[in-house]
């Protein structure tokens, strides 16, 4: 970054006053340009995708999408400074490589410190220096097992779908993607079925087949199809193959 280039910043917070104070503090730094402000997570995903800013000031608790969900959806390349009144997200913030974590209310000095850290990060990124990952690794070691997902987020261009897990019928592996079937619709996501399996409640979602993860609330019955081969019949009549190992897992749960 040279002196003529400015730091392009997006501010995301659902409270107008919280956005105002970030804007005010940034106003004293000539090399910073606020290119957009967003009042919710959906807007933030859209704006960041379209404008690809250098830095994001991101509130954690917002309507529709939390700050962490926004970050998951836009990819983690954009440097982020979290701003929140809650201290319990700090560890998670390090895991997603946040530049800094500002606890509301914060002082102008503390804010400037976060900003200069962000500048370093942006510069390092521009020069292709890999960022130090030790802290993140430590943090993820210290943290207990990640919490199970309550909802699955899927980005479709600038549009975001939020699917609560209890509305998912089943998940199907399709080449490099997984396909979530919920309420008669399907949503593609760039992820492996194994990764989906670990992030969902294993008492509820069973890997019945190499390519299928089933919500057992949707299961009507299991039928013997041929020797050693079974088929799961869902409540809506749909039929999914069940492997031998899958049947063993299913029987254990039922």
């Amino acid at each position: 970054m040279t002196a003529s280039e400015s730091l392009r910043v997006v501010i995301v917070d659902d409270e107008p006053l919280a956005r105002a104070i970030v804007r005010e503090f940034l106003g004293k730094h000539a090399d910073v340009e606020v290119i957009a402000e967003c009042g919710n997570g959906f807007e933030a995903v859209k704006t960041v995708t379209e404008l690809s800013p250098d830095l994001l000031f991101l509130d954690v608790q917002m309507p529709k999408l939390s700050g962490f969900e926004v970050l998951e959806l836009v990819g983690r390349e954009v440097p982020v400074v979290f701003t929140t009144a809650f201290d319990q997200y700090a560890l998670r913030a390090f895991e997603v490589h946040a530049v800094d974590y500002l606890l509301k209310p914060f002082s102008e000095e503390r804010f400037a410190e976060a900003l200069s850290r962000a500048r370093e990060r942006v510069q390092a990124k521009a020069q292709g220096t890999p960022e130090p990952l030790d802290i993140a690794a430590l943090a993820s070691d210290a943290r207990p097992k990640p919490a199970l997902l309550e909802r699955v987020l899927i980005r479709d261009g600038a549009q975001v779908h939020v699917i609560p897990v209890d509305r998912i019928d089943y998940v199907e592996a399709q080449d490099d993607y997984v396909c979530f079937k919920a309420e008669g619709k399907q949503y593609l996501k760039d992820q492996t079925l194994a990764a989906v399996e670990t992030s969902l409640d294993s008492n509820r979602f069973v890997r019945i087949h190499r390519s299928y993860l089933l919500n057992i609330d949707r299961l009507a019955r299991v039928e013997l199809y041929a020797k050693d081969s079974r088929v799961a019949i869902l409540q809506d009549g749909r039929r999914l193959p069940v492997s031998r190992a899958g049947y063993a897992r299913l029987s254990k749960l039922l």
Partner: protein
Amino acid sequence: MHPILARSGRLALYLGFWIVVGVLLASLLVTQVRFDWRQATLVALPLALAYAFVCLSAWYVSRSMPLAVTGAARIVLTAVTASVISSSVWLLAARIWIQILARRGWLTDPSRGTGGLDTLILGFGFLLYELSLAVSYLLAAFEASREAERRALRGQVLAREAELRLLRAQIDPHFLFNSLHSISALTGSDPAAARRMCLLLADFLRESLVLGAQDRIRLDRELGLIDRFLAVERVRFGERLGGQVQAEDGVQACLVPPLILQPLVENAVTHGVAHVLEGGTITVRASRTPSRLTIVVENPADPDRPRGIGTGMGLANVRARLAASYGTEARVDASEQAGLWRVELSLPATTESS
């Protein structure tokens, strides 16, 4: 466990009393039956100590007929029967004991005045057993009152703890942090508004402390507190947060536990309106029939909102407090329908005069 056998100190005191009884009996033997002192003591002391243990049974007799639930006739009848049986047993023991002593040659002329001895032992035994029964009732009453006292004390301690926990739970610290952040933001752009916000916040905090210290408050004060709370939150959320408090005539004077609505309205903001993009209005409605007070808190809610930290705590707290105050007389119903979250409280309508 028998209260006298429960502690060795009590047993010693009890037997000490019976030695005195033994000496009394001995003196009666000397004066009435004309034993000499040595012989009288030899007869009376062991008998008295043996009877001490017989009289312990009076406790169980008294326990089987609590004064509060037993008719006087039954008590008298049972007491007389038990006393007659006990004193008869004692008389039998006395005769055997005298026989043993006589056979050993420690008693001269055992036949002397046996008729007088029988009457004395029977009468004395009867009275002593009646006395034991009376003391047992006294003891039971004493224990009961001590137990009641202990229970009351424990109740007070529990209530106090609950109150403290409540005070901690009442105001979410994040509400404070966020409000302070708003003030910090306003200081730069609009100092007058920052000052107004400080005053609103102070007003709310002071009122919640004053109300929280009381046992019951008038509903209009609780509703006033809700107004103050919403005023503070409106500075943060701006246009997105609306509030509406509707109180029917006659509900203002009704008494409610303090800060019973505040956690519900706080939930309505943090788990309700704050998660809805376009925001919404929180409605608090209070109405009553002659005997019941009904308060409804309604707010728009996003059905897809994450249900993470602290969900359900405030509601559980309100439920527990109402149950503690009114037992089964109070009801809390929570429901969610078509994006509208609704909590209804129903409790007995009481006013200061009633």
